[in-house]
C-alpha cells in the first residue's frame, strides 16, 4: 500500500471544500434515507449527473457521504414511526419501534447511531486496507480470471439474492441483452440497433440508472394512492438528547453483536452481488437464535444487529469496484458511472494511475462514518418531524425534474431523457413484478467485460474453452459459480421435501 499517497489523500480530505462536501453528503443522506420511498440509489442517480461538472475531490466526498449515511437515516422513521425509510431498516423497525412504544425511543436511536458508526468505521478500515492489496493482486489477473470473476458476480446475485431465483436470472439476462445494443466490442458489428444512429454507441449507462432508480419511483408515486397515511397518523415522539448517549455498560453488552454483525456484513459486502438484505437477515437471525422470544419485544441487540450489518456492507461493497472494477451492488454501479464520468478507470489500475482520488474515496468512507455519529445524534430529533411536513406530491415533482435535467445534462441531448423514460417504465414494471434490479444493473455493467475477456481468452488459448478450467484461479471461481447456481435449486428441493406430509 502507498502510505504517502494515503497520508496526502487524508490531508486533502480534511481540507475545507472536500470536508464540507462530505458533511453535506452525510446530512443529505440522513434526510433522504429517512424519507420512505427514497434511498441512497435514487439520490445517487440524481446526483451523479450533477457531479460531472464538479471536480473529483468535491464530487466523490458528496457521493460517499450520501451512500454512507442513507441506510442509517432509514432507521429514524423505522424506530419512531415503524416505517422503514429504506429497505435496509426493515428489521430495525421490529425491535426499534417496540422500544419506542416502551418509552425508550432515545435509547433505540442511540443504539442505531452507535451501531452504524461502529460497523461503518470498521467496514471503512476493511476498504482502506483490503482494496489496495486486492487491486495489487488483481493486476496479475488475465482475461480468464476476469471472465470467471464476472460470471461469479452474476451467479452470486442470482443464487444469493432474496426472492425468486428465476426472476433474478431473468433480470440478469435482460441486463446482458440491453448491454448488447450497439457495436460489438470484438468485431465492431452493430447489434440490435435497427439502423438507428443513436444506438450505435450503445445505451448510455447514467440515464438508464436515472430511469431505473429515479423515474420508476416517480411512476410509483403517480400511480399509487394519493392520500398519505404517514403524514396524517404518526404522532410526534419526544426524544431527549441525553437518552441517545449510551452508558458504557450498554456499549459493552452490544459489542459482541456489533462485531458479529460487522463480520457478516463485511463478508457479504465484499462478495459482488450478494446484497445488503442478505447480511441484515443473517445478522438478525443470529440474534433471534440467541435471544429467542425476547427478540421483537424491544431488545437492544435487535436494533444493533441489523444496523451494524447494513452499515458494514456499505464500504465493503466498494472493495470489488475499486480493486477489480466490478460493482458489488446497484449503488456501487452508480459509483462506477460517477468514476467513468470523471474520466477515471475503475479497477486495479485506479490505485496506481490516480492514487490521489482512489485513496481520497476510501478515506472519505472513514471520515463519513465518523461524521455520521455527531450528525446522527444531532439530526435524529429534527429529521422525523421535518419529513412529516414535506408533501409527497412535491417530492415526486422535484425528483422528476432532477431526473429529466440529469438525463439531459449527461449528453446534452434529449436522447438521454428518452432512455431514462423508457427505463423508468421498465423499472416500474420490475418493481411491480418483483423482478430484482441489482442483477439487471450488474449484468449491464459487466457484459462488455465478460464479452471482451471471453474473446481474449479464446484467442490466447487458440479457441479452447478448456482454458478457463486449466487456470487455477479461474477454475476455482467457476466452481463457486456452479455452487451458487445450484444453490437455489437445492433450496427448492429441500423445501418441497419438507412440505411433503410425514
Amino acid at each position, binding site marked *: 500500500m502507498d502510505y504517502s499517497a494515503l497520508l496526502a489523500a487524508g490531508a486533502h480530505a480534511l481540507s475545507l471544500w472536500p470536508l464540507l462536501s462530505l458533511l453535506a453528503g452525510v446530512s443529505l443522506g440522513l434526510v433522504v434515507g429517512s424519507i420512505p420511498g427514497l434511498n441512497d440509489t435514487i439520490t445517487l442517480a440524481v446526483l451523479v449527473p*450533477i457531479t460531472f461538472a464538479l471536480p473529483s475531490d468535491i464530487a466523490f466526498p458528496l457521493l460517499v457521504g450520501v451512500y454512507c449515511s442513507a441506510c442509517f437515516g432509514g432507521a429514524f422513521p423505522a424506530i419512531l414511526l415503524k416505517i422503514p425509510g429504506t429497505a435496509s431498516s426493515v428489521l430495525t423497525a421490529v425491535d426499534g419501534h417496540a422500544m419506542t412504544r416502551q418509552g425508550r425511543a432515545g435509547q433505540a436511536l442511540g443504539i442505531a447511531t452507535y451501531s452504524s458508526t461502529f460497523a461503518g468505521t470498521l467496514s471503512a478500515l476493511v476498504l482502506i486496507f483490503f482494496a489496495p492489496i486486492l487491486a495489487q493482486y488483481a493486476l496479475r489477473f488475465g482475461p480468464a480470471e476476469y471472465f470467471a470473476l464476472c460470471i461469479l458476480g452474476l451467479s452470486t446475485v442470482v443464487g444469493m439474492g432474496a426472492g*425468486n431465483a428465476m426472476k433474478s436470472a431473468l433480470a440478469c439476462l435482460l441486463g446482458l441483452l440491453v448491454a*448488447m445494443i450497439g457495436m460489438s466490442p470484438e468485431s465492431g458489428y452493430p447489434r440490435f440497433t435497427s439502423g438507428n444512429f443513436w444506438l450505435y454507441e450503445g445505451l448510455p449507462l447514467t440515464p438508464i440508472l436515472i430511469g431505473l432508480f429515479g423515474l420508476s419511483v416517480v411512476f410509483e408515486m403517480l400511480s399509487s394512492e394519493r392520500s398519505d397515511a404517514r403524514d396524517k397518523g404518526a404522532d410526534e415522539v419526544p426524544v431527549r438528547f441525553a437518552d441517545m448517549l449510551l452508558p458504557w455498560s450498554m456499549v459493552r453488552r452490544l459489542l459482541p453483536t456489533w462485531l458479529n454483525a460487522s463480520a457478516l456484513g463485511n463478508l457479504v459486502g465484499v462478495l459482488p452481488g450478494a446484497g445488503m438484505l442478505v447480511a441484515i437477515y443473517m445478522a438478525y437471525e443470529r440474534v433471534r437464535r440467541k435471544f429467542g422470544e425476547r427478540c421483537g419485544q424491544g431488545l437492544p441487540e435487535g436494533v444493533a444487529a441489523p444496523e451494524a450489518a447494513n452499515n458494514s456492507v456499505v464500504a465493503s461493497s466498494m472493495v470489488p469496484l475499486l480493486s477489480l472494477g466490478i460493482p458489488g451492488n446497484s449503488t456501487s454501479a452508480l459509483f462506477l458511472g460517477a468514476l467513468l464520468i470523471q474520466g477515471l478507470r475503475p479497477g486495479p489500475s485506479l490505485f496506481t494511475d490516480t492514487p490521489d482520488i482512489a485513496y481520497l474515496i476510501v478515506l472519505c468512507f472513514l471520515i463519513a462514518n465518523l461524521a455520521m455519529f455527531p450528525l446522527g445524534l444531532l439530526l435524529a430529533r429534527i429529521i422525523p418531524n421535518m419529513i412529516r411536513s414535506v408533501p409527497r406530491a412535491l417530492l415526486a415533482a422535484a425528483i422528476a425534474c432532477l431526473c429529466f435535467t440529469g438525463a439531459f445534462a449527461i449528453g446534452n441531448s434529449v436522447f438521454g431523457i428518452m432512455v431514462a423514460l423508457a427505463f423508468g417504465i421498465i423499472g416500474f414494471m420490475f418493481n*411491480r413484478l418483483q423482478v430484482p434490479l441489482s442483477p439487471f444493473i450488474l449484468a449491464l455493467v459487466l457484459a462488455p467485460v465478460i464479452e471482451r475477456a471471453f474473446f481474449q481468452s479464446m484467442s490466447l488459448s487458440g479457441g479452447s474453452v478448456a482454458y478457463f478450467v486449466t487456470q487455477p484461479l479461474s477454475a476455482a471461481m467457476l466452481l463457486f459459480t456452479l455452487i451458487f447456481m445450484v444453490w437455489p435449486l437445492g433450496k427448492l428441493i429441500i423445501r418441497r421435501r419438507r412440505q411433503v406430509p410425514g
Partner: protein
Amino acid sequence: MTQRRLFALSSHWLDRGLSLVCLALGAGVLMIAKGYPTSAGALPMILGWLLMGCGIGLWLFPGKRADMRNVRIGGLLWGMAVFVAVLWLFASLGADVALFVLFVGCAVLSGYPPGLRLVATALLFVILVGAIFGGLLGVPLPGPVFALFSA
C-alpha cells in the same frame, strides 16, 4: 379513488405472462442474431437460448409476489402523457418551460392542490435548477430563462 389491478391477473399468472414475454423475446433475439457474423452473434445466440430457458423455468416455477393491485391507471397514463409532452417541450421550447410544466403536472397528478402556491413553488424550483446547473456547475441548459444563467 378507485383502486384496481392494472392487469386482472393473479401474481401466479402475471409471472406466467412474464414467462411468455421472455419466450417471445428469446425467440426474437435468436432470429435477429442469426443474421450476425459469428464473432458478433455468438453471445446474443447464447443469450437467446438462455432467455427461452428462463421463460420455460418461470412458467414451471412462477412466483407469488408479483402485484399489479392498487395501481391508479389514470395517474399512470396521465403521467406518461405529461412526460411525452415535456419531452417535446424540452426539444422545442427549452428546459425552463418543460421543467415548469413537469413540476406542476407531477405535483397535480400526485394530489397536490393546483393554485398560486404550486405555481410559485414550481417557478422557484425551476429557477433553482437552472441556477445550479447553468450558474454553479456550468452545464448549459436550453431555454430563454436558463440562457441568462449560462451567460
